[in-house]
């Protein structure tokens, strides 16, 4: 591919994703507001539509405070690690047939690697801030990573077995364009495990222990201010979108839908991702936070055995049928 064309595509993707991040925050505040019988942002623009822009400008011009006792290089690097890791995973996502920046054969593995790397940003931020709340947040993030990465990886092994590939485009194509072809039904256990691990991986309610506003005053991001704080948020929302995309690709048949939309091929993909985003927000508006030991219990005692059982079952069926 022509390198300039590639750069243009990267820029377009970047702009679209950034806009989506901005408006995901607006969407979230609105939905949670209405679910709590409030209205959410209303003042900036019509029904608060310009609120994310105002927030962005505000955080950009805010003072950037670095605590005196912070481990400075790590402190500065942590949010960037988060953002870079999350944005890199965008490159391998197929939004429609041929709409992918890097159609690599180890797409799924790449996503795993990058989402794990993003957790390092959180852990390092907690360590480098040199504050007790941040430290506890980082510690919790670490524990969460080791209990949920495994179950998430194992839950997707079922999909790999069924599709026979790690390439995300091939996974979508293996599901075909019929409703019954989606891996949601044959891989329902895997989807269940993946969905819960996905919430934990993106640090969303009910597994938002690393940031836990109510007990750790934003946990790992307590000491961050201005743009660096905003970068953590961007990383979180891109992470949500990446995870929603992976769920769409691996379980809901990616860009395939009941009929083709000629003008905009990724129509169904985007719709499914929005559905997942709504689900994320819906869950956030409903559930309280899990206790720390409950989270560990769920991860180690329930999700990992379930994922392992799913692998065995899928492998047996594959062996019998194929």
């Amino acid at each position, binding site marked *: 591919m022509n390198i300039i064309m590639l750069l243009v595509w990267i820029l377009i993707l970047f702009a679209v994703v950034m806009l989506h991040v901005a408006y995901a925050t607006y969407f979230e505040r609105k*939905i949670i507001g209405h*679910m*709590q*019988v*409030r*209205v959410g942002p209303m003042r900036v623009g019509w029904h608060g539509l310009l609120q994310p822009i105002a927030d962005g400008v505000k955080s950009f011009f805010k003072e950037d405070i670095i605590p005196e006792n912070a481990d400075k290089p790590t402190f500065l690097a942590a949010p960037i690690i988060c953002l870079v890791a999350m944005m890199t995973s965008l490159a391998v996502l197929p939004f429609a047939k041929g709409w992918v920046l890097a159609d690599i054969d180890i797409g799924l593995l790449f996503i795993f690697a990058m989402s794990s790397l993003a957790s390092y940003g959180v852990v390092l931020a907690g360590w480098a801030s040199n504050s007790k709340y941040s430290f506890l947040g980082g510690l919790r993030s670490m524990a969460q990573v080791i209990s949920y990465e495994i179950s998430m990886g194992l839950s997707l092994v079922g999909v790999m077995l069924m599709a026979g590939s790690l390439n995300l485009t091939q996974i979508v194509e293996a599901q075909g364009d019929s409703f019954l072809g989606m891996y949601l039904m044959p891989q329902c256990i895997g989807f269940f495990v993946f969905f819960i691990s996905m919430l934990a991986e993106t640090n969303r309610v009910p597994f938002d222990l690393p940031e836990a506003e109510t007990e750790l005053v934003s946990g790992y991001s307590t000491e961050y201010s201005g743009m660096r704080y905003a970068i953590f948020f961007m990383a979180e929302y891109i992470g949500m979108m990446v995870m929603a995309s992976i769920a769409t690709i691996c379980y809901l048949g990616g860009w395939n839908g009941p009929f083709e939309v000629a003008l905009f091929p990724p129509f169904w993909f985007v719709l499914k991702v929005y559905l997942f985003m709504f689900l994320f927000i*819906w869950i956030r*508006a*409903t559930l309280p936070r899990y206790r720390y030991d409950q989270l560990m219990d769920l991860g180690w005692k329930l999700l990992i055995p379930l994922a392992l059982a799913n692998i065995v079952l899928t492998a047996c069926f594959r062996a019998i049928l194929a």
Partner: protein
Amino acid sequence: MYVQYKPKRGLLGTIFQVEILQGMALTLKRLFSKPITRQYPDVKPVIRPGFRGQHALVRDPETGDSKCIGCMRCAMACPSRCIRIRSHKGKEPGAKRKIDCYRIESLRCVYCGYCEEVCPVNAIVLTEVYEYGSYDRPSLYFTREQLLANWDRFVEEKGADMENYVNPFWRPRGLAEADLPAPKRLSVSAEWRGEEQVVGRKWQQQQAAQQD
């Protein structure tokens, strides 16, 4: 006491996490309900009678001055000690007490309404004005003139129904007519009158005395 922390449920309930689904259904239902938010600067809240807002000294239409007689009861009753009164009495016999200074430090006020309840002549009021924020402290340290001006402004805003305006605190609820000083025996709707009330210890004692 035995508290059942984990409610009993069947196998299906455990698998499908019924409680979580119930909660999700509730939030989804609320998503489509009408928000109760009031967009404050655009939509003003309804002020009910008895609202305790900005302080004012009632201007007596006969004398054109405040009704205050300098009895110091409001200053004594004030829990936050924000009322400051200085007065003097002329040497000649029968002279009335004259108020030199009547100040309310509204930043310290807790808006309990004791001052207007205890005032025997209905001189001090907490009006229904609530938007009087300021950027400096001195302007919120009301002097006598400011307090009288507050009353004038309140009368102007309130308009036509000012003749019948009675703040429920001028005549505390649950007190019988006979227990009130003469200026506080104002004509109010029946539900405010002691005879209709079931609150207030004096009222209860009176009831008990009547039954004996």
